[in-house]
């Protein structure tokens, strides 16, 4: 029997804007050679993953990643002390800076990660995508960086409506009027500062690639999908695997050019003659279990890479595999809730 491997995963909030954590944990538990004990890192006592004991073995409430780095890392050290934690898979955007900066310290403590470098993390800023997209053979929707309300209005005059108003790293609002645009601009400035990006909306098929980069220009597996049905929050609820060679080649060029290490998701829009790059996410998407179900267990590959274990690298999957997300109801006692509220752990 394999030795138990203790892996902590965040993003166990399977709500209307689901986190990737439960898909990651489910994937890890389905690897026939890994005996994974899953630790859920939560930010709220009502995150559903805390209560799904067939997936998450123990859960801990974490300080917000925006709090002091030392408090966050100290909490992880405590989790390690009581669980024997060996690997962490952070899945939320806001956590990545703390994990990337703290990588060496965590490694020294015996906690492994498999993350992009700080330089790679910054490369996916939406402003940097302007220079990156052509190098990958991808197009970028017309985009302008603005730092004042006057510039915002001028940019919208040029680009027209509907438009996307985006923060440099996070948040994007689709706007149809100047009033909506002003509201979105102010929200982004307040939260993320300047510059704000104004982007023309391009119409086409929403296609994505999920994968893991090996950090040396290669891939530990990748898979392309088309979103068939999305919610009003833009979250995929139904999708299908596709084999679009242009998209796969662009992803391989991205890995070669950047030497990306760790999980990533490329969000694109495909039209008849072009593929537009919309975003590069430095983490697994919430639909990550789709790849596992289609035969490429990317979370297990990432954990194996973090531990320097042998990793399969093939990207063989069948086009036409369908992904259906559904909701589920759980009725349970107050025991777990009481424990997590009073002790911060289960």
């Amino acid at each position: 029997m394999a030795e138990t491997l203790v892996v902590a995963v965040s993003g166990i909030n399977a709500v209307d804007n689901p986190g990737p954590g439960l898909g990651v944990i489910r994937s890890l538990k389905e690897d026939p050679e890994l005996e994974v004990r899953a630790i859920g890192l939560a930010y709220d006592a009502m995150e559903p993953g805390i209560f799904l004991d067939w997936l998450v073995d123990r859960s801990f409430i974490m300080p917000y990643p925006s709090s002091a780095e030392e408090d966050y890392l100290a909490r992880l050290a405590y989790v390690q002390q009581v669980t024997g934690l060996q690997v962490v898979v952070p899945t939320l955007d806001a956590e990545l800076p703390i994990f990337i900066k703290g990588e060496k310290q965590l490694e020294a403590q015996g906690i492994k990660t498999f993350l992009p470098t700080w330089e790679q993390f910054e490369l996916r800023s939406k402003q940097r995508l302007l220079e990156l997209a052509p190098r990958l053979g991808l197009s970028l929707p017309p985009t302008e960086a603005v730092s004042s309300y006057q510039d915002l209005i001028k940019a919208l005059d040029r680009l027209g409506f509907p438009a996307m108003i985006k923060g440099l790293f996070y948040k994007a609002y689709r706007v149809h009027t100047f009033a909506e645009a002003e509201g979105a601009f102010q929200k982004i400035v307040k939260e993320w500062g300047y510059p704000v990006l104004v982007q023309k909306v391009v119409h086409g098929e929403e296609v994505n690639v999920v994968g893991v980069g090996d950090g040396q220009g290669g891939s530990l597996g990748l898979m392309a999908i088309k979103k068939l049905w999305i919610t009003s929050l833009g979250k995929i609820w139904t999708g299908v695997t596709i084999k679009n060679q242009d998209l796969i080649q662009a992803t391989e060029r991205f890995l070669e050019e950047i030497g990306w290490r760790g999980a990533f998701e490329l969000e694109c829009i495909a039209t008849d003659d072009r593929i537009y790059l919309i975003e590069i996410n430095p983490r697994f998407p919430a639909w990550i279990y789709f790849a596992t179900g289609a035969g490429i267990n990317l979370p297990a590959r990432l954990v194996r890479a973090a531990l320097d274990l042998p990793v399969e690298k093939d990207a063989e999957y069948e086009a036409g595999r369908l992904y259906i997300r559904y909701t589920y109801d759980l009725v349970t006692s107050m025991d777990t809730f009481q424990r997590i509220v009073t002790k911060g752990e289960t």
Partner: protein
Amino acid sequence: MNRLSRLAINEEGFIFDPITGNSFTTNQVGLWILERLKKGKKEEEILAEMLEYFEVDPETAERDLTDFIEQLRNYKLI
């Protein structure tokens, strides 16, 4: 017509394009025409076969074939 060769088509008339992820449905006549287009047959040849295979007058057959091929073009399947 080589776009057609990539399509996965089942006998009930469900068509899946593995590059775009789009799917379509067609009836048995559409399926019959698609089979011939996939084999590289020209419109005139298919029309001639239609007149032999189905009980249909030439005008209706030609109109239906042209309409169907136009739809395939609209969906960028050919």
